[in-house]
């Protein structure tokens, strides 16, 4: 039934979208609003919603380091439009006293974010002339030679859009739709359903069981309107190959059909949490996809193959009234048959100060369809120490200091213990760094930060400092700026060694109720660019109807 007598005024914003994308956006928003309103009960009509829109324009230049001839500067112009719709307390009363909240049978929410982006300028729309053979020159659009540019040239994404019911029967949470979630190790984006059930709370430990399943959102997925950002890495949209049965080997193909295949994903997790703040979680995830027709030899096994499969364990404790917090997490990759991510450490906090130490391990892992998994790559291991003073309204200056060391082990298979412990200097590489920073409060309206750092070892050297400030002026106008100076040395790129200076400045200006304009300028001077001015402007709309 229709909802309350409320007028909904959708924020308007300018857009450069082509007609097809504009209609798609309108359909998505209309559908989302209709779903939200259709679910509203006639008797309990105090749902809340807000709509936010952001129109962003960027302009800067990228150096085209041509092998023959002088370098060129490519203009990169980007426009991005996002539209977010959130509806919550669909079945419950509006935020008021705690007693009112008890009367809602469960929470029903809708959350969605859609995005349109367009790249124009010579970077994305220019042409590239190249020489396929002696005396022969061809010119093609850049997007034809660099298919990755097509992901942003005209791109419409549904970043997330899901309906969530929380505390159903008091213990069950359900999410349905395109979701963006994270577990202990990575971000997950999938179209499907997620459930979390919590056992009754009279136990000293609260147990919860989670399960999710759906289709992984891929850049080239058949679901459409999907971003590749959270897709498993390691496979590309270009330099595609397919097996030629006649010749008996892989030959270039016009399209990477394997990346278009649907990738179902499922996961389960069991977690326990104590009232004191200690938690433990055991999880399992697997994603898989069918072989694309014509890509692999016909003699090979067809059907589904695993793209990722892992077991995860994480735990953190809270002891001494929250002052001492040990933690550990590890993920066993069933594809690589190794621990690919692990971390352990402890933080001690008291009197507004915290000291922490952390050991971590990371082994590069990719989509199991990727060749990069079979190369002799090794993990890197970190040791990090940090100290910081907790910012508080009563502390004018807060200090932070940290030190880290990273060991790159050369190979993970067949390595001796010395390599595993980063003691074999012939097969390991190291880097380390220190950072010291301070935050100065400027009344309640702003702060200034100074950071000094030094890093050296594998990868190169960089040392420098940053000075940043943020201050709220009158009527919500804010100003922020950051000045940076750095000296760096890049291995085998002596032409890039030297000092670089940069400054970023900008702010936000409220124009009207729920409307703000943000403008940022970014200018740098260094070895690669004598000047590289970047301009970013953003027009934000926010609307929340009065209830």
């Amino acid at each position, binding site marked *: 039934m229709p909802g309350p007598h409320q007028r909904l005024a959708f924020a308007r914003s300018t857009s450069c979208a082509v007609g097809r994308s504009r209609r798609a956006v309108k359909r998505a928003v209309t559908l989302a609003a209709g779903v939200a309103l259709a679910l509203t009960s006639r008797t309990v009509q105090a749902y809340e919603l807000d709509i936010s829109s952001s129109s962003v324009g960027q302009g800067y230049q990228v150096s085209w380091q041509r092998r023959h001839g002088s370098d060129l500067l490519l203009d990169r112009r980007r426009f991005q439009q996002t539209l977010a719709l959130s509806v*919550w307390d669909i079945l419950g009363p509006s935020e008021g006293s705690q007693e009112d909240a008890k009367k809602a049978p469960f*929470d029903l929410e809708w959350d969605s974010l859609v995005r349109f982006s367009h790249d124009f300028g010579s970077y994305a729309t220019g042409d590239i002339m190249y020489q396929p053979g002696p005396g022969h020159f061809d010119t093609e659009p850049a997007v034809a030679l660099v298919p990755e540019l097509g992901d942003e040239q005209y791109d419409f994404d549904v970043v997330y859009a899901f309906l969530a019911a929380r505390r159903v029967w008091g213990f069950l949470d359900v999410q349905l739709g395109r979701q963006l979630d994270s577990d202990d190790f990575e971000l997950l984006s999938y179209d499907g359903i997620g459930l979390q059930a919590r056992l009754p709370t009279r136990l000293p430990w609260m147990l919860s069981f989670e399960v999710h399943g759906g289709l992984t959102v891929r850049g080239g997925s058949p679901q459409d309107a999907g971003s590749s950002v959270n897709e498993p890495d390691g496979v590309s949209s270009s330099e595609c190959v397919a097996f030629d049965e006649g010749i008996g080997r892989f030959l270039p193909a016009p399209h990477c059909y394997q990346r278009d295949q649907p990738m179902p994903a499922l996961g389960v997790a069991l977690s326990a949490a104590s009232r004191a703040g200690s938690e433990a979680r055991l999880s399992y995830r697997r994603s898989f996809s069918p072989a694309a027709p014509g890509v692999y030899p016909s003699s090979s096994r067809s059907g589904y193959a695993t793209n990722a499969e892992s077991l995860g364990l994480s735990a953190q404790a809270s002891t001494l009234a929250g002052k001492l917090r040990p933690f550990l997490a590890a993920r066993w990759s069933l594809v690589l048959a190794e621990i690919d991510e692990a971390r352990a450490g402890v933080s001690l906090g008291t009197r507004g100060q915290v000291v922490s130490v952390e050991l971590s391990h990371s082994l590069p892992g990719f989509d199991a369809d990727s060749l990069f998994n079979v190369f002799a790559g090794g993990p890197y291991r970190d040791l990090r120490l940090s100290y910081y003073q907790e910012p508080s309204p009563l502390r004018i200056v807060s200090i932070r200091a940290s030190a880290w060391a990273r060991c790159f082990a050369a190979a993970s298979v067949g390595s001796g213990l010395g390599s595993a412990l980063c003691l074999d200097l012939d097969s390991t590489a190291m880097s380390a760094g220190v950072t010291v920073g301070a935050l100065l409060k400027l009344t309640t309206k702003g702060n200034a*930060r100074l950071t000094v750092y030094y890093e050296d070892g594998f990868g190169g050297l960089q040392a420098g400092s940053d000075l940043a400030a943020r201050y709220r002026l009158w009527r919500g106008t804010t100003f922020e700026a950051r000045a940076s100076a750095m000296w760096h040395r890049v291995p085998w790129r002596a*032409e890039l060694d030297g000092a*670089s200076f940069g400054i970023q400045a900008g702010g936000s200006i409220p124009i009207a109720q729920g409307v703000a304009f943000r403008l940022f300028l970014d200018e740098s001077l260094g070895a690669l660019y004598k000047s590289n001015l970047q301009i970013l402007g953003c027009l934000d709309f926010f609307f929340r109807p009065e209830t």
Partner: protein
Amino acid sequence: MRRPVVVTMLVGMLTAAGIGLDLVSAADDDTGDGVQQSESPSPLIFPIQSLPFSFSHSRHLAGEQTKCQTCHVRADTSTRSTDRLFPGHRECSPCHHLALPSPQPNVTERRTVGSSSACRSCHSGNWEDDSPNALSAPPANLKFSHRIHSARRVECQRCHPNLASIGLATRMQLPKMSVCRGCHEQTADGTRCTSCHLAAAGGTIRVSFPQGLLVPSAALGIRHDLDYHSGHRRLTRSNERLCRGCHRREQCVRCHDSRLKPMALHPAGYVGLHQVEARRNDPDCSACHRLQSFCTGCHTRSGVSSDERTFGKQKGTPEQSTSTKKQGGSPLHRSSFHPEGWSSTDGKTNGRSPVLHARQARANIRSCVSCHREQSCAECHISVRPHPPGWERSSECRSLAKRNGRVCLRCHDSAFLATGCIGH
């Protein structure tokens, strides 16, 4: 190169140790009234008050005759934190006969109290114009119902401790979050922060107040410090539920979708400055960027990667261009991104370290994946072994072949797989 690394580590460790010693021996910050800074509730939740009164809870609560509700008569029925629960003249008058100036109503006197000098017995401080100083007690930025807690027989002392031993109750007698979490940690409502905190748009916690910005305490295990922009990975992945209390997904996407450069994370000119951090993968590029989409796309277009078609050959006269290179002039001045001998397999090239790219790739293959696609590596490695020593007998080979054997078919035929690692 190892000595600076070792020195850096020692400096860092000594600094941390020194700070740790200071941590143990440091005196507490003091607000000046004998109160430990770390023990006071947040002024963003309970704003600073001005209570120009003289009062003794210890005297009033001595014995069994006077209870909290005797003076705080509206507490048991209060449903909102904005309710004013301070006792007024009406609540004090049954015991203290108050001679109130008009237009205050007269009260039955059992004991006559003097004029303004008697008022000063409670209304302390420096009066101005013969008027007592006004009470200033801004409402708490919370949602709270005393009535619910009273109905569940939660004693006042549970949240307001030590009243029987103090004089005037101040903010220090208001509960800190750790007290609330003693009951509300993991109840059905415990996961919903806005059960108690004021809500902002989207059902998140309101964090912006005139007194400042509300940030989570380290006691929650999700600190917000100077390094938060680059160091929040572990905290958010372990405490996503808590993060959602303040942050909407939209805020995360704004940085993690690789569309807008976060100024706090990447300095000006990062396009030309990211080489060192990318080679080390610190910070982890994949937190926001997909290597085979975002990174390879830009590297290919800008002529950095190995795709010769994008190196930009020109025919005829050189174009009018704005060169940013310091080296210039003659064609072919641009050296390869990689040094000479980079992909050599003979072990000895111009005195450089043998198999240079192999060592770099083994240390951090992610840096390769940011420029090269699979096929560019396969072109050489179809004949040059890419696997580490012992690969065929490794559990890694068997696991990969079992779960996704089609990737092996890029180089091996089906018959080989039957006798390859699977056959071992």
